[in-house]
C-alpha cells in the first residue's frame, strides 16, 4: 500500500488552475491534497485563512514555493476545418508566507502570492486573433495579517490585501491591417481577508475564510496601435501611434469552507468547498482617451465587451498519509467549474469544467521541510458558441502543474 500511494503520487506527477484567470496554486503541500485549506502545520496556511496562523505549532514559520504550469489550448472550427493550438509559455506562480507568534494568543503573518493570472499565446494567424493574440494577466497579492486565539480551539484572523499587477494584451486590428497592444503594469487594488479557524479536537481542523474582491484599476494604460501612420489622425493617436486607456479588472471574492480530519494519527483526509464570485465580471470596459475604437453609441472611445461570468463552485478532496515520521505522501482530486457558458467562451481567458488529480510527497528533516506536488488537469472539451464575436468552434485544453515548496518549522 505504501508503495502504491507513492507510485500513484509520482505518476499523477507533476501539478491546479481554477475557473477564469484565478490560479489556485498557493501552497505546494496544499496542492498535493487538491489545494485544500484546513492545514495549519506551517505558514503556507496564511494565504488560505489568516486565522490559521494561530494554530501553527511553532513560534516562527516560513514557507515558500513555486509552480510550473504547462498548458495548451486547442481550438478548431468545424466549418472552415481550421485548427490552432496555443504556444503558452510556462506559467510560474510563486508564493511566500511567514507567520510569527507574538503572544500565545496573537499571531502576525504576511503572505505574498500570485492568485490571479494567465498567459495565453495563440499563433499570430489564428482564427480568433481579432479577440486575442497574446495576453498576460498578473496580480500579486501582498497580505499582512493578524490572528487572535479567541479560545484554545478557535481563532479569528484578518488581513489587508494590497494587489499589484498588470495586463499586456495584444490583439489584431484586421480592418486597419495591424495590431493593438494594451498594457498597464501598474494596476493596483485593495481588499481584505477574514477567517475563522477551529480546532475542536486533535483530530479535526475546520477553516472558514473569505477573501474580498479586489478591483484592479489600470489608470495609466497605454494602447499602442501597430498600424500605418496614415491612420493615426483617423484613430486619434499621437505621433508614436499611442493612446491612453483606463480599465478596471475585477479579481473576484472567494468563500472557502475547509475541513481536515485525522482518521489515524498518520492519516488525514481533507475536504474543501470554494465559492467564487465571478458574477461580478459581467463586462470589461476599456475607456480610451482619444481613439474612437469603442462600440458605445454615446461615446465612441468606450469599448465594452460582455463577459457574463457566473459564480462558480469548486469541490476538493485530499488526503495525506505519513509513511514514516518524516515522509508524507499526498493525493487529491477536485472538480472546478468554468465561470461561463459556451455562448460566452472567450479565448483570452479560456476556461473549462475540469477534473484535477493531484499528488505529492513531503519530507522533513529537523526544522526544514521540502514538498513536491503535481497535478493533471482533465479539462472537458467544449463548444465555442459566441455570437457576440461570431466566433464558433470547439475548444479543448490540457494542463499540468508541478510545484516545489520549502518550509521552515514544518509539520
Amino acid at each position: 500500500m505504501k508503495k502504491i500511494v507513492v507510485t500513484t503520487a509520482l505518476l499523477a506527477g507533476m501539478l491546479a488552475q481554477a475557473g477564469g484567470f484565478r490560479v489556485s496554486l498557493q501552497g505546494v503541500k496544499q496542492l498535493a491534497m487538491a489545494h485544500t485549506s484546513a492545514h495549519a502545520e506551517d505558514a503556507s496556511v496564511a494565504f488560505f485563512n489568516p486565522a490559521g496562523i494561530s494554530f501553527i505549532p511553532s513560534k516562527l514559520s516560513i514557507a515558500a514555493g513555486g509552480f510550473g504550469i504547462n498548458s495548451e489550448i486547442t481550438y478548431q472550427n468545424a466549418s472552415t476545418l481550421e485548427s490552432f493550438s496555443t504556444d503558452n509559455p510556462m506559467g510560474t506562480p510563486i508564493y511566500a508566507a511567514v507567520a510569527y507568534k507574538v503572544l500565545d494568543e496573537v499571531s502576525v503573518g504576511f503572505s505574498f502570492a500570485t492568485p490571479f493570472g494567465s498567459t495565453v499565446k495563440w499563433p499570430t494567424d489564428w482564427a480568433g486573433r481579432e479577440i486575442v493574440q497574446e495576453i498576460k494577466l498578473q496580480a500579486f497579492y501582498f497580505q499582512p495579517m493578524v490572528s487572535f486565539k479567541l479560545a484554545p480551539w478557535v481563532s479569528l484572523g484578518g488581513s489587508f490585501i494590497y494587489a499589484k499587477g498588470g495586463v499586456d494584451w495584444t490583439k489584431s486590428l484586421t480592418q486597419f491591417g495591424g495590431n493593438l497592444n494594451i498594457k498597464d503594469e501598474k494596476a493596483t487594488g485593495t481588499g481584505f481577508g477574514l477567517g475563522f479557524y477551529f480546532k475542536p479536537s486533535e483530530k479535526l481542523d475546520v477553516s472558514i475564510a473569505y477573501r474580498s474582491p479586489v478591483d484592479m484599476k489600470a489608470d495609466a494604460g497605454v494602447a499602442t496601435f501597430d498600424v500605418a501612420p496614415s491612420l493615426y489622425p483617423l484613430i486619434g493617436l499621437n505621433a508614436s501611434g499611442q493612446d491612453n486607456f483606463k480599465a478596471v479588472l475585477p479579481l473576484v471574492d472567494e468563500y472557502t469552507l475547509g475541513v481536515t480530519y485525522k482518521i489515524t494519527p498518520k492519516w488525514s483526509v481533507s475536504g474543501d468547498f470554494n465559492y467564487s464570485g465571478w458574477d461580478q465580471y459581467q463586462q470589461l470596459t476599456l475607456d480610451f482617451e482619444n481613439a474612437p475604437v469603442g462600440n458605445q453609441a454615446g461615446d465612441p472611445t468606450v469599448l465594452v465587451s460582455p463577459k457574463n461570468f457566473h459564480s462558480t463552485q469548486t469541490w476538493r478532496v485530499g488526503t495525506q498519509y505519513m509513511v514514516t515520521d518524516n515522509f508524507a505522501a499526498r493525493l487529491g482530486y477536485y472538480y472546478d467549474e468554468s465561470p461561463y457558458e459556451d455562448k460566452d467562451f472567450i479565448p483570452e481567458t479560456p476556461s473549462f469544467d475540469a477534473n484535477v488529480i493531484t499528488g505529492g510527497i513531503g519530507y522533513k528533516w529537523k526544522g526544514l521541510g521540502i514538498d513536491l506536488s503535481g497535478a493533471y488537469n482533465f479539462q472537458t472539451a467544449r463548444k465555442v458558441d459566441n455570437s457576440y464575436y461570431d466566433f464558433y468552434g470547439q475548444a479543448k485544453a490540457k494542463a499540468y502543474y508541478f510545484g516545489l515548496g520549502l518550509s521552515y518549522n514544518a509539520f
Partner: protein
Amino acid sequence: MKRILISTIAVSALLFNISCDTDFDHDVSSIVVSKGNADFTKYVALGNSLTSGYRDNALYIDGQNESYPSMIAAQMQLAGGGAFKQPMMPNNTGGFTNLPGFAGKLNLQVVNGALSPVPSAPAAALDNITAGGPYQNLGVPGAKSFHLGAAGYGNMAGLTTGKANPYYVRFATSGTSSVIGDAVAQAPTFFSLWIGNNDVLSYATSGGSGVDQTGNVDPTTYGSNDITDPNVFASVISGYVNALTAGGAKGVMANIPNVTSIPFFTRVPYNPLTPALLGSNITALNTGLYGPLKQALTAFGAGDRINLLSATASNPLLIVDNSLTNLSAQLTLALTPSLGAPTAAAFGQIYGQARQATAEDLVLLSTSSVIGTPVAGAPASINVNGISYPLANQYILTKTEKNKVLTATAAYNASLKAIATSKGLAFVDANAKMTELSAASGIQFDGVKYTATFVTGGTFSLDGVHLTGRGYALIANEFIKAINTTYKSTLPMVNVNSYSGVKFP
C-alpha cells in the same frame, strides 16, 4: 483504512468519468470533405468583374488570386475538384497602356492630409494569353448579361466599335467565340453564374445618363449606359443555363445586389454642405440666390424645390433633376425685373430643372471631387458646383433614376431565382447579403466586424463598387453554403479574415 482509501479513489474515479470528455468528438484534421451529389472535377465560373476578382478599379494579380471562384475552387479541390486556371494579368497594377479609359488600380494615399484613392498609370499593353488556356475563370469585367453570349465579344477588331471587351480579347479562343461558348466547350461538370450587375450598374454609375431600354428587346441597339430590358435579360440567362446544363452539369447562380447597398452610392451624403463649410456665404447665398429662386418657384407651384440654407444644420446639394418640369422660361420671366434680362435668362436656363437633393437621391462617389469646384463658363457669382450651381445629371442618381434601377434589378432577380429553381440549381441571395453588410450592424466573422462603409468597412475596395479579398471571401462562403445545401456536399468555409483588405499607406 485501506477500504476507505480505496472507496475514496473509487468515488473520485466515478466523478471523473462522468464529465471527462477531454477530446473533440471529431478532430477537424480527420474530417473528410464530401462532394455530395455534385461533381467538381471541372468547375467553370462565368460572370463579370466580380467573378474575375476585379477591385480598386482594375484587374490585377493580387485581386485575381483572391477572386471568389478561386476560393471556391480551392475548397472543391478537397472534394475531388480539378485545377482552376485564371487568365492572370501580366502585372499587379492592371490597366492597358494602349487603350484609353483603362487606368491602373487605385491606391490609397494621403492627399491634403486625408486618405484618398489615387489612380495609377496602367502597367502594360493588352496582352493575348489564349494559348495558355482554356481558363476556368471566365469572368469578364464590364460584361452585361447579353455579352456572354455575343460572338466576337473577344475580337480585337471590335474594341474600337465597342463591340468587344479587352478582358475577353485576352483569352477568347477565337475572334468569333463567345464566353458561354468557351465555357461549354470545356464540358464543365459544375459552373457558377453571377451576371447582370452591369445591366443596371453602368446606368447608375453614370448618374442615369443612359436610357431605360425596358420594352426594347434588341440589345444591339443599346448604349453602354442603358438599362437592359428584363425580358432580354431573362431570355439570355435562360439560354446560358440551358447550354451549361445540357451536358448534365450542376451549378450555382447568384442574384445581383441593388445599388443602394454599395459605397459608390452611399459614401457621399445628399447633404454634405455643413455650416462650417459654407461659412459666411450662407447669408449671401440666401439673399442673392436661394431666396429669390424660392420666391419665384413658389409662384409656379414648385416652392418645394428649394429651401433656404440653414446656418445650424447640414444643407443638401443643389442638383439638376431631368424629371422635373422645366421652368426655365417662367424663371426667366419672373427674375427679369430684378436681375435684368440677360442674367435672368442665364438663371432661368441654369435653374429650370434644379432642386435640392433629398435623402432619396444618391450622390456618386466620384462626385465628391466635383462638389464646390467652379463650373467653367458659368457666371462667377453662381459657379460653385452643388452650392450655387446645380450638379449636372451625371453626378447624381436621382430618386426617379434610382427607382428605374431598382425596378429593373427586382425584375432581373426574380428571373434569376426562377431560372435557378426550374433547373434545381443552388442559388445565392447576394442582394440580401449585401443589404446585411450595408446595415449598421454589418457582418461579423471571428470577431472582425465588416460593413459596407467606404475604406474602413473592410469589404469594399477603393472603387466603392467591387469587393476586397475579404469581401469576396464573404461572398465565396455564401456560394459554398448554397452549394452544400443544394448538393449535400460538405465544402468547408473560407476564413474571411485571412484574405486581404484595403491597404493603408
